[in-house]
């Protein structure tokens, strides 16, 4: 099992969410975060000088899926979150060793 951590533009969230739901990937946890990439955010020109706005609002999605689903989910997010401009975000995949459903107590162990 893997946790897919995707950091995307807030305005792309709905599109990503819908595309994932179509693929049957419904469950997720969403956090409002701020972030910057390697470009140090956005540069605004301001009366000759530049102002850097470094931390921009992003949405972090955490999605835990079976190993075989990872590539499809990653690909779906990528496709729907992309604008092609700086700031589209990143996806990280982290191993999950165990997953428990609180309601039932049912435990799934990852292969890791």
């Amino acid at each position: 099992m893997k946790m897919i951590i995707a950091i995307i533009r807030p305005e792309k969230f709905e599109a990503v969410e819908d595309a994932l739901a179509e693929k049957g990937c419904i469950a997720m946890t969403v956090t409002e975060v701020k972030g910057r990439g390697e470009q140090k955010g956005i540069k605004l020109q301001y009366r000759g000088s530049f102002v850097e706005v470094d931390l921009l609002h992003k949405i972090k999605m955490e999605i835990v899926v079976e190993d075989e689903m990872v590539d499809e989910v990653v690909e779906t997010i990528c496709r729907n979150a992309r604008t092609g401009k700086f700031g589209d975000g990143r996806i990280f995949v982290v191993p999950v060793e165990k997953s428990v459903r609180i309601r039932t107590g049912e435990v799934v162990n990852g292969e890791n």
Partner: protein
Amino acid sequence: MNTADTAWILVSTAMVALMIPGVGLFYAGMVRKKNVVSMITLSVVSALIAGVIWVLYGYSLGFSGDVSGFIGDFAKILLNNVSIDSGNGIPEMLFMLFQMMFAGVTLAILTSGFAERIRLSSFIVLGVLWLTFVYIPFAHWLWGGGWLSRIGSLDFAGGMVVHVSSGFGALALALVVGKRYGYGEHSIEPNNIPLTLVGGALLWFGWFGFNGGSALHADRIAVNAIAVTFIASCFAGLSWMVMSWLKGKPGSLGIASGIIAGLASITPAAGFVGTEGAIIIGIIAGIICFIALDFRIRKGIDESLDAWAIHGIGGAFGSLAVGFLADPSIGGYSGVIYGNSGLFVSQIIAVVVTIIYAFAVTFAIAKIVNYAIPLRVSAEEEYVGLDISQHGEVGYV
């Protein structure tokens, strides 16, 4: 001097002053978090612009003398000869100040049309020009002895001067400035509905001074004005609520919009119609402004905070309704239902002319300013938000 009238207009002036930031708060809750400061500031700056223009030449051009029915003269620039004393009624200085607040509120309403994408500096230039070439002429035409008042058109507290001007002006501006980036593609959600409702509460309160104070006396007309104002707003709030319930859930923003639609619609009529008229105007206002808003959205026009649908349509509708419903026992004027169709004709002329003028002249001003200095921020600035890019501030930490 009538001290009781003076007391009432002193208070009314303060109440209308409170509406200026009130518009900003009302609007600010409906934009995205990154533009919340900008939206309030546009209204605050509207007050500053109106205050300065009014003192320098605005009051004079609006209310002093008359040049061919179109505009006033310069006899009272810098408030020259505007006295704090008076024969009977209220001092002219107080009337001047009361009117100043109206200019401020109107400019604040106009900011709907370019919400979340205007450059602050361009707004200031635009605001000065707009007050000069749209608001002040309208004030003169209807209240300063200009041609519309001479042909018998009535506008009690600003159905056309305030609401048609800002509503149709905002529409023109929205077209010139263009849609917000991503508008129609992803949803743009209100960031803070309670803030909008705080602003709405202040507007509701201030409107007592806006319409009631427009009687300029603490008299029967003032009493009538505040009664019909509140009653129309209640019925309009309910009729909008019913409309939205039929289509889905009745949201608080809808109910508030309905209330404001009722307030805008009763504004031109508050000194001329009675409580039955207020009920009729209220119910219809809630329905037609709802439909206008729906139409605006379906057309994909990003007149972002619906000054057009609510103020523009509401103010125009109410101005026409005066021609129908004016009750001679209230304000001395008769509408169609009291057997006089002349007033209705004057009202139609006034509404048509003010709609066309407001739209066309605002459009022209916007194009000119946009040519000289861009009205709109850059794509990056818009993405980051106006709070950071225009003000260097962050609304909430």
